[in-house]
């Protein structure tokens, strides 16, 4: 039997797990979410989710991983089989291999965008005059206009960067856990933090980017993200319902809007259009058509969407429920620390997300576009990262250098994450097929090259990527994470789970943690998953069913989407292939026979 791989230092595993968690979401998605849902309210929901959802699931993954690793299993099927009395759980554990493999296949595509943007900033060719020009470059670069458009050898197409990123990942993964993943993360993570700190200083010292709009500044950008009370200008629609038309940030803007509304009301009253009965309460100035409304933190927290968004952000940001931490932790020994390591890697992720990501993206974008400009351009991950910010960088002094730094930062964050997605598959091939690292890397290389090539080719409207992301990157991850928690909480037992986690750890979980792990976390994750499914899949509260369902059923048009169905076929095919490898595994059979 080949020698068992392992980490070479405690700091190495912490940086590798932190690297797995720190990704594009930290720098692009989190700031957009905070801005969208309001600073204090979102942070309250976020912190609560972090402690009752994120950390317990992370502890569960670290504990199950180390537990499975002590019996020589490093991949999710083996780790779950080692932790449960039912050997067939290994077929469920296969989901952990399948989901990381498929997520890698579209994540590498996005990783290539970051590399491509960094290189193009270095070449000095990123010079956009408008948001539309930045958007057009993005669509052309990734090939979103038509299928096959991305496959072209040019600096202004993603294809070459995809090949470079793919080879880099496999070169590192082939070198092994210690010499590849740990080695890279040990240098990449500090470099990433250093670049982010330089960018934070640059953004925080921005003067007026656009002298014709002095109100657009960093103070307004920070206020847009962090002000606890959301102040909005609303307009009354024909059906009598008030609808938000703009967000107001800063005392000057709020006072100006109130004055404007009061003036309009006065003019309307003097013209005899309205009576006093239309006046609203004391905190809003009223007009038949417009009003300024202050939404308190408490009122914002009554909105279920904010809780789903915060829980989802914590869940996906920490990459829990993913199988990656499970695999990484399996390379630890029985008495190695996991409580402090889990907390440290999560804290590192939060530091990158809140302290670095929260101070770069949205403040910079608002300083350049203003609040309405950013809201108009979009607060989604792709809008902010690949349309708004590239335009911002082309308009500041030394913008090419800062643009290069920003996209290099995203690229490093993406590589440290994608490495963690490959390792479960590599470990599975090694232990189930009984092959060495060289051959398992080759098998995974061939599989991922074809699936990521599929994503790259079917790039029109990002349909292939979007379909994989929804069904695998969200639905299956939620399910897998839930089952992991159930296993530790109810199969192994929460009290025993806490003891297992504390064994060998530098700091200990308090004994009372079993209540959180045994009841609060499993129940919360079920509620969040049910609410998320109701909204995202069945359109509850949105008023329309999911486009992902329509893609498969045909929806109103009656024509199912072929690419979406091909994605489903790939998912099923990959699972069947992995299941065949698992079914013929001598190592698993031997362990199963012993267990029975």
């Amino acid at each position, binding site marked *: 039997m080949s020698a068992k791989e392992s980490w070479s230092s405690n700091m190495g595993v912490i940086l590798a797990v932190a690297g797995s968690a720190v990704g594009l979401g930290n720098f692009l998605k989190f700031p957009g979410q905070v801005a969208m849902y309001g600073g204090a309210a979102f942070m309250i929901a976020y912190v609560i989710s972090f402690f009752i959802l994120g950390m317990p699931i992370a502890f569960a993954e670290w504990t199950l991983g180390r537990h499975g690793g002590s019996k020589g299993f490093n991949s999710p099927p083996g780790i779950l089989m080692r932790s449960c009395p039912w050997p067939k759980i290994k077929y469920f554990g296969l989901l952990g291999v399948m989901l990381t493999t498929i997520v890698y296949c579209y994540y590498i595509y996005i990783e290539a965008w970051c590399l491509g943007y960094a290189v193009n900033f270095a070449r000095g060719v990123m010079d956009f005059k408008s948001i539309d020009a930045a958007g057009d470059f993005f669509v052309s670069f990734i090939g979103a206009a038509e299928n096959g458009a991305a496959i072209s050898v040019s600096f202004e197409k993603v294809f070459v960067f995809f090949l470079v990123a793919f080879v880099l990942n496999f070169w590192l993964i082939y070198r092994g856990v210690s010499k590849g993943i740990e080695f890279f993360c040990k240098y990449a993570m500090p470099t990433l933090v250093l670049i982010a700190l330089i960018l934070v200083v640059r953004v925080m010292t921005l003067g007026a980017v656009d002298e014709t709009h002095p109100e657009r500044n960093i103070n307004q950008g920070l206020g847009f993200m*962090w002000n606890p*009370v959301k102040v909005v200008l609303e307009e009354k629609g024909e059906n009598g319902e008030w609808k938000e038309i703009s967000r107001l940030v800063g005392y000057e803007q709020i006072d100006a809007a109130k004055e404007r509304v009061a003036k309009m009301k006065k003019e309307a009253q003097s013209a005899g259009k309205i009576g006093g009965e239309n006046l609203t309460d004391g905190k809003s100035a009223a007009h038949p058509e417009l009003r300024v409304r202050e939404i308190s933190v408490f009122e914002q927290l009554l909105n279920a969407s904010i809780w789903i968004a915060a829980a989802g952000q914590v869940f996906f940001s920490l990459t829990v429920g993913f199988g990656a931490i499970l695999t990484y932790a399996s390379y630890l020994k029985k008495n190695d620390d996991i409580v402090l390591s889990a907390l440290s890697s999560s804290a590192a992720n939060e530091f990158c997300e809140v302290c670095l990501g929260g101070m770069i993206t949205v403040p910079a974008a608002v300083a350049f576009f203003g609040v309405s400009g950013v809201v108009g351009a979009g607060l989604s991950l792709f809008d902010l990262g690949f349309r708004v910010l590239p335009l911002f960088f082309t308009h500041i002094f030394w913008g090419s250098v800062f643009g290069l730094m920003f996209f290099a930062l995203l690229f490093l964050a993406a590589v440290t994450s994608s490495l963690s997605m490959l390792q479960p598959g590599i470990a599975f091939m090694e232990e189930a097929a009984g092959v060495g690292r060289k051959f398992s890397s080759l098998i995974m290389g061939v599989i991922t090259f074809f699936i990521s090539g599929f994503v790259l080719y079917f790039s029109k409207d990002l349909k292939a990527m979007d379909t994989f992301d929804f069904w695998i990157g969200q639905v299956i991850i939620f399910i897998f994470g839930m089952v992991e928690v159930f296993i530790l909480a109810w199969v192994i037992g929460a009290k025993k789970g806490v003891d297992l986690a504390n064994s060998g750890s530098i700091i200990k979980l308090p004994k009372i943690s079993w209540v959180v792990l045994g009841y609060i976390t499993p129940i919360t994750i079920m509620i969040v998953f049910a609410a998320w499914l109701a909204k995202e899949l069945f359109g509850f509260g949105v008023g329309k069913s999911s486009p992902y369902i329509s893609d498969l059923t045909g929806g109103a048009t009656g024509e199912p989407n072929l690419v979406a169905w091909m994605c489903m076929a790939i998912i099923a095919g990959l699972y069947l292939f992995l299941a065949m490898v698992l079914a013929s595994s001598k190592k698993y059979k031997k362990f199963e026979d012993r267990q029975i």
Partner: protein
Amino acid sequence: MTIGGWITFILSTGSVCALFVWCMYKVVSSGRAEKISFDVDAGHSDNPKKRSFPEE
């Protein structure tokens, strides 16, 4: 940004920074930051070189 915004901002970033710094301090001061408690680090298993490290 309003005063409430500054308070939210400082509390959020400050607490996360404090947690991160405390964790790093604990890892480094525990003496395990660079500890190798494992018996083998083979690089990759196609070319294993068995090395042994004493348990602490």
